[in-house]
């Protein structure tokens, strides 16, 4: 498959690894923001292959992990209503709310459907004019334009029985919050490639300067990730801190202007509470007032719900890179993919699930294990 196979070439991977090894002279800690990158790293064993001096801290790049608990509970409430067909990406079905998840709602009679695209939800709305169709619009800047276009179409075509439950989050405010954390150990960032395909690279130079960190825009195939690491290490060793684009084939510097224009029309910036991290100002998007008629939160008047996070769950610390999953006492004992306490264990690329899936065999290189 073009644009995939070439970037999975083991021989080229070896050359990248050799170059990284030859460049490293001291320990460095870098964070990959995107959950998809975490998945790729652990799935291919990249963190096992890079020199022991390099530490990859898994960042809060999974919208499943960071969707606020209150928002999950709102989704569950709406999905439980008999007139609603609740459509969602597959990732969200097992994210635990205060006391259940969408799977449980489905088992109790809720009409919960997995779709590939928000446009599929719009189609379902047209085909079921006597039902209310709600789409769970979560994600980072990559998913925001698709969700925006869907609600834009709904309004334009007058598909009145469709509404969007919005919980979008943005990457740059998360980077700020992480760098401002007193216990922050991150010295560089592998920026999320597809987020930058949409937003471009303009938001990052000020961050690189303010926090003196290299920021390398990185893709998702194994060679892309190794190249992102390689360029990051080069900067770190040279004492540089600039924005470098290692994913040029999919990221022009200006990003996607058409998408950005629509985002400005459909969404407005808002404060968002990130699960496990807390409130980050101006870190999310909600529907603009002119789209209020299509906003599920308003249509269903979901009142303030009492939410209760598990006290044992340390997802927050994992998300910020402060602890590794196996340093949490609940990891692998009370909290497993089978019975997750927090979102990091549910999501296929939440750091805890990734560790549980791929790392149970032996301790990760250079790390102390602490089981239970």
């Amino acid at each position, binding site marked *: *498959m073009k644009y995939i196979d070439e970037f999975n070439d083991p021989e080229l991977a070896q050359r990248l690894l050799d170059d990284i090894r030859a460049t490293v002279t001291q320990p460095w800690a870098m964070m990959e923001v995107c959950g998809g990158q975490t998945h790729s790293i652990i799935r*291919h*064993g990249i963190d*096992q*292959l890079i020199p022991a001096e390099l530490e990859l801290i898994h960042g809060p790049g999974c919208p499943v992990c960071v969707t606020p608990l209150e928002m999950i509970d709102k989704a569950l409430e709406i999905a439980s209503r008999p007139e609603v067909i609740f459509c969602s*990406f597959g990732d969200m079905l097992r994210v635990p709310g205060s006391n259940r998840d969408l799977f449980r709602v489905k088992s109790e009679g809720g009409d919960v459907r997995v779709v*590939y695209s928000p446009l599929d939800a719009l189609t379902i709305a047209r085909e079921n004019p006597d039902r209310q169709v709600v789409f769970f619009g979560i994600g980072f800047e990559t998913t925001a334009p698709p969700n925006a276009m869907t609600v834009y179409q709904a309004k334009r075509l007058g598909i009145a029985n469709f509404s969007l439950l919005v919980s979008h989050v943005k990457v740059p405010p998360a980077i700020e919050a992480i760098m401002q954390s007193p216990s922050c150990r991150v010295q560089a960032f592998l920026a999320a490639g597809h987020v930058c395909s949409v937003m471009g690279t303009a938001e990052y130079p000020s961050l690189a300067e303010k926090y003196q960190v290299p920021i390398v825009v990185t893709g998702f195939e194994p060679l892309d990730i190794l190249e992102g690491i390689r360029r990051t290490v080069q900067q770190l060793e040279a004492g540089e801190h600039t924005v470098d684009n290692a994913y040029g084939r999919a990221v022009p510097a200006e990003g996607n202007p058409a998408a950005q224009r629509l985002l400005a029309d459909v969404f407005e910036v808002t404060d968002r509470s990130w699960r496990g991290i807390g409130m980050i100002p101006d870190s999310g998007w909600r529907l603009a007032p002119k789209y209020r008629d299509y906003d599920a939160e308003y249509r269903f008047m979901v009142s303030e719900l009492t939410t209760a996070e598990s006290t044992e769950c340390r997802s927050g610390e994992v998300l910020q890179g402060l602890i590794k999953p196996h340093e949490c006492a609940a990891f692998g*004992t009370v909290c497993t993919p089978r019975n997750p306490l927090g979102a990091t264990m549910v999501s296929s690329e939440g750091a805890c699930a990734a560790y549980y899936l791929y790392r149970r065999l032996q301790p990760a290189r250079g790390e102390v294990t602490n089981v239970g």
Partner: protein
Amino acid sequence: MADQPPLDITGWSCPLPLRDSPTIVMGHGGGGQLSAELVEHLFLPAFANPTLAGLADSAVLTIGGARLAFSTDSFVVRPLFFPGGSIGDLAVNGTVNDLAMSGARPMYLSCAFILEEGTELATVGRIAAELGKAAEAAGVQIATGDTKVVDAGHGDGVYLNTAGIGLVPAGVDIRPQRATPGDVVVVSGEIGSHGIAILSVREGLEFGTAIVSDTAPLTGLVNAMLAVTTDLHVLRDPTRGGLATSLNEIARAAGVGIDLVESSVPVPPAVANACGLLGLDPMYVANEGKLVAMVPRESADEVLAAMREHPLGRSASIIGECVEEHPGMVTARTTFGGTRVIDVPVGEQLPRIC
């Protein structure tokens, strides 16, 4: 870095069964951990017996002097007709294959229909016709059956159950517990086609593809393998839950570890690309015309050659081996030399956006 003892993995599962769901959820049908817990904590306590304890695809019984294999399977697939087959094909081949996985010659099937009031007669007729054709192709007879009708709104059109019996030849003892360190792991062909064919026509996910279900009766292929040696250790058809789930079940039943080489697992490019699009792992996608075998090392090459001579085994490949290390666990060496654990899924595998 101090030397750490290996992690103790034996206690790593939820200690309290079914505690988080008082009702059946879709995951219980996924063939993964939830399904296994339903069996272990709800069904086995109710009617455990030595025969059932083997928990193989089919039970091998000795009645009079004859060794019989006996199996049952239910079919709830949606849609009823999909690229490459129908629920009728699955109903025959599914049970025929369960019997063949004991090395048996499948002979007779029962077939029960549960029909929803309002289902078109033409639909039922078409399913019955395809079922009949599949039975003929598999060399089995439908010996007995039953029909029930449920109220409209209480079923999904058509559900089928088939049960089957077959004769197990002398000297054949094929069951998961027989997997032994040193055994070679062989898969009969490319994986993932059935599950992807079904997804390609499922609402909300549909996509265009030439991939069709691989549903097929495996009796002939198994006979070709038995002709080389009757001492095959394990046969399993990796249906729901995919290759990963079957290998984990075998590893656990036998108390062996399994090491795979990821690049050796054959996957059709279109299946790999569909999985890439939806964020799925082919290792967990259902197959309906494939088998995985644990073969004693000394016979492996010959068995592989015999498989490749058979139409259903042309792409047969050695994908790994059974080992003493990490008993009960399946691992795979990635194309880059890393190692990953191939775990049992909790419920059904879902498409993802991340």
